[in-house]
């Protein structure tokens, strides 16, 4: 099982704990990663489509040359690329135009065959949950976990959940919590926005969203929240103290990346998953995890 790996900017920038954790987990699972190094940023929903569609088409063409589907570890990268890919696959005239005007100079052509998948989808759709279960060395019993998807991994339907079968993607993280032996602390905003996209434009609203989601999770008794999106992590973990200051309410909820969560269940030591690099202390989570083993 092999993928063209698109790690995204944040997994080595603002969340440098994510990239090595994901690589270790993939290695343990036997998922081979061929990293796409000479491709550009997706645009993250910030840059306009007329600029990012050609840049993303170039990424898809590179993966197509390798004959591999793309695997990401970021909901935002997945969402932006899946939307661009939908437009390029759906409209051959548009794809031809992008190929002709932007990719032909390099001798590249995107034929429209590349799939874009988040690690979370890979686990359920390609790797297989039964196979994953055979590798669990430390069922995370006694830990209460809230899911937080990152809105780009939920919508829009034509790109993210295009069939009835794939509508299950909206529940993968919920299911995974039980599969890894933990207990779910469900929250109403698990599929909503974390507030990160408006951190610059409207900090107050952005921090209010952080407080809403993490506060609800804490009230439900969660030990931590897990997210497949490092941008959500930047806001929910990195800005949680500011959200606390804004609302005057203590929250103190650790936020784990998806690969860290899977890695702990696979038997990795918390230090191997770089939990110490988080802004909100993960000491209590580590103690509970170590007590299991």
């Amino acid at each position, binding site marked *: 099982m092999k993928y063209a790996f698109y790690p995204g900017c944040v997994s080595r920038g603002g969340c440098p704990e994510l990239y090595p954790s994901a690589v270790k987990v993939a290695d343990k699972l036997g998922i081979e990663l061929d990293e796409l190094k000479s491709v550009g940023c997706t645009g993250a*929903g910030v840059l306009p489509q007329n600029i990012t569609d050609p840049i993303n088409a170039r990424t898809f063409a590179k993966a197509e040359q390798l004959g591999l589907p793309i695997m990401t570890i970021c909901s935002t990268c997945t969402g932006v690329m899946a939307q661009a890919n939908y437009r390029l696959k759906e409209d051959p005239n548009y794809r031809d135009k992008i190929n002709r005007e932007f990719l032909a100079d390099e001798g590249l052509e995107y034929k429209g065959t590349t799939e874009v998948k988040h690690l979370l989808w890979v686990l359920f759709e390609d790797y297989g949950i039964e196979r994953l279960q055979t590798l669990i060395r430390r069922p995370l019993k006694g830990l209460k976990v809230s899911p937080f998807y990152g809105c780009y991994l939920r919508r829009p339907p034509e790109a993210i959940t295009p069939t009835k079968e794939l509508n299950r993607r909206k529940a993968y993280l919920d299911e995974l919590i039980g599969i890894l032996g933990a207990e779910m602390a469900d929250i109403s905003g698990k599929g909503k926005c974390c507030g990160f996209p*408006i951190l610059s434009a*409207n900090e107050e609203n952005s921090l209010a*969203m952080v407080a809403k989601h993490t506060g609800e999770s804490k009230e439900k008794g969660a030990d931590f929240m897990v997210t497949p999106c490092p941008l959500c992590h930047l806001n929910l973990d990195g800005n949680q103290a500011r959200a606390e200051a804004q609302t005057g309410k203590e929250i103190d909820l650790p936020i784990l990346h998806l690969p860290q969560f899977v890695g702990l269940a696979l038997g990795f030591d918390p230090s191997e998953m770089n939990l110490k*690099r988080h802004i909100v202390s993960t000491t209590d989570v580590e103690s509970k995890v170590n007590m299991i083993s």
Partner: protein
Amino acid sequence: MEVTYKVYRKDPEKDGKPGRANYAVDLLEGATVLDGLLKIRDEMDSSLAFRASCLRGNCGDCMVRINGGSRLTCVARVSAFTQKGPEISLDPLRNVPVIKDLVFDWDAFMWNKIKAIKPWLEAQEASSNGENIIPDAELKEVRKVMSCYHCGMCDEGCTVLPVDFHFLGPAALTKAYRFVFDPRDKETKERFKTLEGPKGIWDCVHCYEADEHCPRNLEPTKRIVALRDRAFQLGITNEKVARHHNSFAASVKESGWLDEGRLAVESEGLTNISGLMKLLPIAAKALMKGKAPIPYMHSKRPDADKIKKIFEKAEREEK
């Protein structure tokens, strides 16, 4: 079938305190939620207040929350909401001023916001023969959006409105799209002054919840994204957002990917001392954890020059 309606009640002429009243209603199979409400008002409690107008899912007037989710009562079948048991809860929308029972303040919820975006066409001067002929294809998307009947379900689903009721919201911004992208309208720049102002397009988190809620599939989020892309092409006038977007664009153009440290400082503004000071505690914490990206210490991606070429060509084409 007998169903218990658990209805939110609030009467400002009495104590004004919110409560809930239960009504056991006998309904025919296939009855709508509105059928039950009408029966309650006609036969059991004439003081119950709710709205309804067209009775066929075309006007949006009867929107309430049924079992927590926003629905039009005139087209919602009772049987679809009683699968777990013979009772349904009815509430007014979240975060809106309630006038009485299920009747809430539509002006505050949506109409005042639609008024704020100047919902009429400011037509260009007619050509010498008195006509402005627009090719049909140019109006295709605009016409689609014109079929919005202002039910407000997109606003009800919006992620931002629960934390900021003054955000213009997807309904009003979709209305703005209808005029900005109408080739007959001459007010684009004026319109963007409002749209790029506080509570406008840049406060949208583009989470696509509104699209999931729209009963006519008008894709309000995609309309807001189109407005933002148009603002980018015209030159963003909201200074803070412009700093953020321009830094992001420069970083991708120069190196192929994002220099997050640079984005953080340039978004605040390199001469904005108080803004940069605000970043210090966060940067210090991140540094201690070994995770603060250092601005401008960012390596280029292999092939960055090729990505730059694509970026610049796309920019030239949009002009």
